[in-house]
């Protein structure tokens, strides 16, 4: 197999099979729109790094996903967004955390990669860097949506950290653990085998102020090298402990597994059940999207014409 491929996700978690149409359809439409955008960009010869950034920006602009506009709120009712991006060929990468006014965190992560001698900038200084480089910022109230305020209120009432996609309701949640995990990500490979990955998130509902998850941690939420590109989603703390994104590449590199085998191994063995999903592409155009949660908002396409948009397992 050879050719371009792209995969993107909008989070993995306990997405109920009976998710109402008014919640499912907008997300499926967004996935289709973002996938089409990515396909067009790849077909027109854009580098995978540009494609990954473009798609994640689009996901960040969509209020139904937990990144950018739809970011969930901290314990103090603020947003603290984070993102990272990585180029497979050079392994150059950039990451940001603690953003409150930057419209597209993924583009700031790219700027950190390209315009600073560092890889990772966070909080006030990352915001100052954004302003110094003319990156679009808005008042932080832009990110505070009524739906996320309701989610935070519910999470506080039940004294736990929560993830998005939960339907705000007076009912006590069935499981007191994290029910759903929100993050967005995109991985892409072009016909020449160049790879890139990008991930962005608002974190957990009711997370402690200053909490950093897996998304900006290179090797955990995002990784790309000459073999593959990975973007992971789920319970951030488990993804960090499992160094999920890097481990897919390590299994290919050190154990000689294929992309599909490596990704399945990590999702099945390296993290607890119900905690993780990922999207991955390889240098020769393979694509895979495993998860061990109830569902994962996902979409992919490859040059051979294959295309998929789905939420739950294909069964």
């Amino acid at each position, binding site marked *: 197999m050879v050719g371009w491929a792209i995969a993107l996700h909008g989070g993995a978690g306990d997405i109920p099979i009976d998710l109402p149409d008014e919640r499912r359809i907008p997300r499926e439409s967004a996935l289709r729109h973002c996938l089409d955008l990515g396909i067009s960009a790849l077909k027109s010869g854009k580098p995978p790094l540009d494609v990954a950034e473009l798609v994640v920006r689009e996901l960040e602009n969509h209020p139904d996903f937990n990144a950018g506009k739809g970011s969930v709120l901290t314990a103090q009712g603020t947003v*603290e967004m984070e993102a990272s991006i990585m180029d497979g060929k050079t*392994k*150059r*990468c950039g*990451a940001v*955390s*603690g953003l409150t006014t930057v419209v597209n965190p993924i583009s700031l992560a790219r700027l950190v990669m390209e315009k*600073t*001698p*560092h*890889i*990772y*900038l*966070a*909080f*006030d*200084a*990352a915001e*100052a*860097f954004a302003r110094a480089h003319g990156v679009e910022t808005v008042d932080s109230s832009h990110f505070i949506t009524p739906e996320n305020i309701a989610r935070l209120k519910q999470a506080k009432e039940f004294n736990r*950290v929560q993830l998005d996609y939960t339907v705000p309701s007076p009912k006590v949640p069935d499981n007191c653990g994290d029910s759903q995990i929100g993050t967005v990500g995109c991985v892409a490979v072009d016909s020449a085998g160049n790879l890139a990955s990008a991930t962005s998130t608002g974190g957990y509902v009711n*997370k*402690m*102020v*200053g*909490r*950093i*998850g897996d998304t900006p*941690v*290179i*090797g*955990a939420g995002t*990784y790309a090298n000459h073999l593959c590109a990975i973007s992971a989603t789920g319970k*951030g*703390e488990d993804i*960090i*402990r*499992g*160094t999920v994104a*890097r*481990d897919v590449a*390590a*299994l290919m590199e*050190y*154990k000689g597994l294929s992309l599909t085998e490596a990704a399945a191994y990590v999702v099945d063995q390296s993290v607890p059940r119900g905690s993780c999903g990922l999207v991955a592409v390889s240098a020769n155009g393979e694509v895979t999207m495993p998860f061990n949660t109830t569902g994962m908002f996902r979409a992919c396409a490859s040059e051979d014409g294959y295309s998929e948009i789905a939420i739950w397992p294909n069964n």
Partner: protein
Amino acid sequence: MGGWAIAVHGGAGIDPNLPAERQEEAKQLLTRCLNLGIIALRSNVSAIDVVELVIRELETDPLFNSGRGSALTEKGTVEMEASIMDGTKRRCGAVSGITTVKNPISLARLVMDKSPHSYLAFSGAEDFARKQGVEIVDNEYFVTDDNVGMLKLAKEANSILFDYRIPPMGCAGAAATDSPIQMNGLPISIYAPETVGCVVVDGKGHCAAGTSTGGLMNKMMGRIGDSPLIGAGTYASEFCGVSCTGEGEAIIRATLARDVSAVMEYKGLNLQEAVDYVIKHRLDEGFAGLIAVSNKGEVVCGFNSNGMFRGCATEDGFMEVAIWE
């Protein structure tokens, strides 16, 4: 082999002109920290507790770049970071942007033990520290005259300067003449910080690792390096415990600490082979070093930089403190 083992480091990449008295001071501190760890291990203290104990000692002494004596940001403040990992269940904790907590490694431990998260940073981490009742000091506690002078020099040279603890004149000379290679448009030598770390395997074969740093001199406010990143600067598993130091950005790209364990798990290499492999193959143009212990009581130090401040000891009586090859 079998039994406990411990290693400590105080940074990789050392100016060949480092004065003899500075070398001796470093060796004495490493020896003292090793002995502290050895006493604890002989008393059956767990690996994770020994790691925290030893790194606190390194953070308290201003000789290396962590805690007191941390490198300064472009604004003359400190922003410290640390991480700790317990190999038995791969539990971990990390902190960044710490300005008033006396021992960042203990705050990282509390994040691991007492919060639902793995990583807290900046004002949120400081708030958590106060709620947990950890010892807080003014930012001035961390600032030393040496570092104020170093920051001034770095600003004049418009570079991000490593801390070699040598007279300013010599340091500028070293940076200018010994570092023609550039990375990200800056002399490569400036990237070598004197981060501290400790790795331990206890008598039960449990591994743990920790790393702590003040980061780069004259770094941008809000810069996060490799030290708090699990998988990059610190990693521990059932197989081994690893702490890295050197060019943080290269360590991140390489996921250096994680890869020692990965090649042991996936390639079946032993500790020495794994360390040699990652130092040789995983770093691109970067210079770095690492210390590692295995669940079999082995200890290995590896680096491709010019020297690394390090010390190690094993239950069978072996002990070594060294700087150069």
